[in-house]
């Protein structure tokens, strides 16, 4: 039986009652290497079962939506219930395309890293619906504050993947001028903020951006992303407080992919209560959503977008998904979780589920799908070829190291001018 056919889970007992020697409770992980994947802890609500309240509902009244699971696609790949966003097939196909492009890009960059041509990479395998559906539900003028697994936001907003590759290569067309680790993109013209690398710091910033929008009387809203692990940081709680106090037009997204490097979400506080449920406690509306259900993610984001843009206030969205790949290329998840556990994730794969839905609608076929995958692979390959001519780790043109002294300040103070000269002398 698919988990989507299961009745709503009763409030859970602790999933593995471990009593440590004294009294300190240490949250365990459901399964470790060598054990069978165990997702019995996952709380679900059948697709279509939860009501879709009007967007001006009070934060408190969203509590059932914050502890349940908003879903649209059922086990027969049909869209059911009040959260069905009733998107036309063209929009669904656009979403499928962006998700497939994100995955093709990731796979190619992972290979490129193995070949030693880029120094670091972070994949978003299994989380593609989060960035793609959420970006599509927002306006291009809305400001996005991405985390490091949100490459789909850049791709969906239309940043050429070749530009992203140049950043990964730290080459002469690197948008960061050699200053940032790979994947820490930005795109001011696309209203995509600069990635930080420090966790949860961008949530209060997104709230502030949204406050400014309200102060200026504009209807642009902000959205920010963080992982469930980072909700432990103080900045998450401060962001919720400010968002509630000022009813800021902002959407705060928690991508619950179950793992913070080696640390299971229980250690972030996910065993006792859902992450979405933090919202109503602060006076912020909240939705817990099947993050691998493209339609549900789109629909929930649209609900929050209308609430924010209409002036009612902010929404916290927990997107329940699974980190299908390693934390980064510096990580080896087989050391701390069962190999192949992603294949057993009860909420499936976001691309496969949307594809099956389109096939069920009679709008798509396996042959068309295969042709699209192949087309996107070609697009990625040709972008790579183009990007690599501006330099790679080992060959081609290099950035001028004098660039390191620029942008520390708007104009360069004398001590940095002097240091730039000293470096020049060192290199001569």
């Amino acid at each position, binding site marked *: 039986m698919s988990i989507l056919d299961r009745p709503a889970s009763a409030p859970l007992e602790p999933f593995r009652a471990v009593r*440590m*020697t*004294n009294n*300190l409770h*240490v949250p365990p*992980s459901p399964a*470790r290497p060598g054990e069978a994947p165990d997702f019995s802890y996952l709380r679900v609500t059948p697709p279509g079962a939860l009501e879709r309240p009007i967007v001006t509902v009070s934060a408190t009244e969203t509590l059932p939506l914050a502890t349940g699971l908003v879903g649209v696609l059922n086990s027969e790949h049909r869209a059911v219930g009040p959260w069905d966003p009733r998107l036309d097939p063209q929009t669904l196909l656009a979403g499928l395309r962006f998700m497939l492009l994100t995955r093709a890009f990731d796979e190619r960059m992972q290979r490129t890293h193995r070949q030693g041509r880029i*120094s*670091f990479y972070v994949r978003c395998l299994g989380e593609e619906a989060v960035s793609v559906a959420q970006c599509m539900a927002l306006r291009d003028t809305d400001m996005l504050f991405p985390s490091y697994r949100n490459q789909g936001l850049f791709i969906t907003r239309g940043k050429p993947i070749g530009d992203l590759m140049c950043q990964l290569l*730290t080459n002469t067309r*690197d948008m*960061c*001028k*050699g*200053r*940032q*680790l790979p994947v*820490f993109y930005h795109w001011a013209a696309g209203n995509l903020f600069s990635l*930080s*690398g*420090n*966790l949860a710091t961008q949530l209060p910033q997104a709230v502030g951006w949204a406050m400014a929008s309200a102060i200026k009387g504009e209807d642009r809203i902000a959205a920010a992303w963080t992982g469930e*692990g*980072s909700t*432990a*940081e*103080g*900045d998450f709680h401060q962001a919720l407080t400010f968002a509630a106090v000022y009813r800021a037009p902002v959407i705060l997204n928690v991508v619950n992919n179950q793992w*913070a*490097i*080696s*640390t299971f979400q229980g*250690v*972030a*506080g996910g065993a006792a209560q859902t992450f979405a449920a933090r919202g109503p406690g602060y006076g912020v509306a909240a939705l817990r959503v099947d993050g691998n259900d493209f339609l549900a993610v789109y629909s929930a984001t649209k609900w929050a977008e209308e609430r924010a843009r209409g002036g009612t206030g902010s929404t916290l969205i927990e997107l329940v998904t699974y980190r299908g790949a390693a934390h980064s290329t*510096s990580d080896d998840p087989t*050391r*701390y979780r069962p190999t192949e556990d992603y294949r057993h994730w009860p909420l499936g794969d976001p691309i496969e589920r949307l594809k099956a839905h389109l096939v069920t609608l009679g709008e798509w076929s396996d042959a068309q799908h295969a042709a699209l995958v192949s087309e996107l692979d070609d697009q990625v390959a040709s972008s790579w070829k183009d990007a690599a001519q501006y330099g790679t780790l080992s060959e081609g043109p*290099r*950035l001028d*190291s004098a*660039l*390191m*002294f620029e942008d*520390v300040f708007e104009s360069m103070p004398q*001590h*940095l001018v002097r*240091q730039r000269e*000293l*470096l020049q*002398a*060192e*290199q001569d």
Partner: protein
Amino acid sequence: MPKMNMVQALNSAMDTMLARDNAVVVLGQDVGYFGGVFKVTEGLQRKYGAQRVLDTPIAESGMVGAAIGMAVNGLRPVVEIQFADYIYPAYDQIASELARLRYRSAGEFFAPVTVRTPCGGGIRGGQTHSQSPEALFAHVAGLKVVMPSNPYDAKGLLIAAIEDNDPVIFFEPKRLYNGPFAGEPEAPAESWSAHPKGEVPDGYYTVPIGKADVVKHGEDVTIVCYGTLVFVAEAAAKKLGIDAEIIDVRTMVPLDMETISNSLQKTGRCVVAHEATRFGGFGAELVASIQEECFWHLQAPIVRATGWDTPYPLAFEWQYFPGPARLMHALKTVMEAS
């Protein structure tokens, strides 16, 4: 004697103290089951249990705040902050609370907390995995600040830090985890097994906090440095054929001015070197203290060799890093001054 790299030596220090004192606990992000992203706590949770080697939520302020509470209640917590670049959310707990608890309570409360954190660049970490913020902590009254440069010192100093009743901020130059490094990224990697300081006793010993180490005796010039710069200094002096005395400060607070002063009285010339940014860096404190104590012995202005006053740039880390070229330039300047 066993050979250890710095990761193993630090692990051995915590292992020794966890076995010796039930009050010792280790906490931090990924330190338990996984053994830490640099493997410094590998195997400790298996050996001492999940209550003494705790995986924590990602909340640096929470980790240090909780450690203060544990310490006040009789434990000796060792907190790992995964990268020094991520220590800032804990800065309030460290600077306002941990540093001053003894002082504000007239000694009735104190918190013997050790905060370990990997620092420094040279691992292609960019601006978020390369920083050396020791000066920000050395500046706060009430904190001891330590940075070892080799496995022997790392273990002895970490045990001393855990036993110390005052808070200790313990910086680990991660570029030195696996071997000494003279600032030449293209040179073949060296291992600690070939280095005398890679010989580390298995059991308990301490290296005192507050004592500098004269790494190499010399007559011409004194190089005062710590962390990654110790090996760069050795290499630079050798290349120039200068008989330099090299002092590894090891402990920024309390600072061993006696060792530094004795050396300066002999050589009369001084280069101060560290990887961190120059402006307001710990080198500035060294230069000021040296001129206060040794002014009449100085034959030339003291020169600093440091990282530049920019964030640590990914693509230019070796142009940023104060390598042998920058050290040699500083040495020449100080030797050529009349």
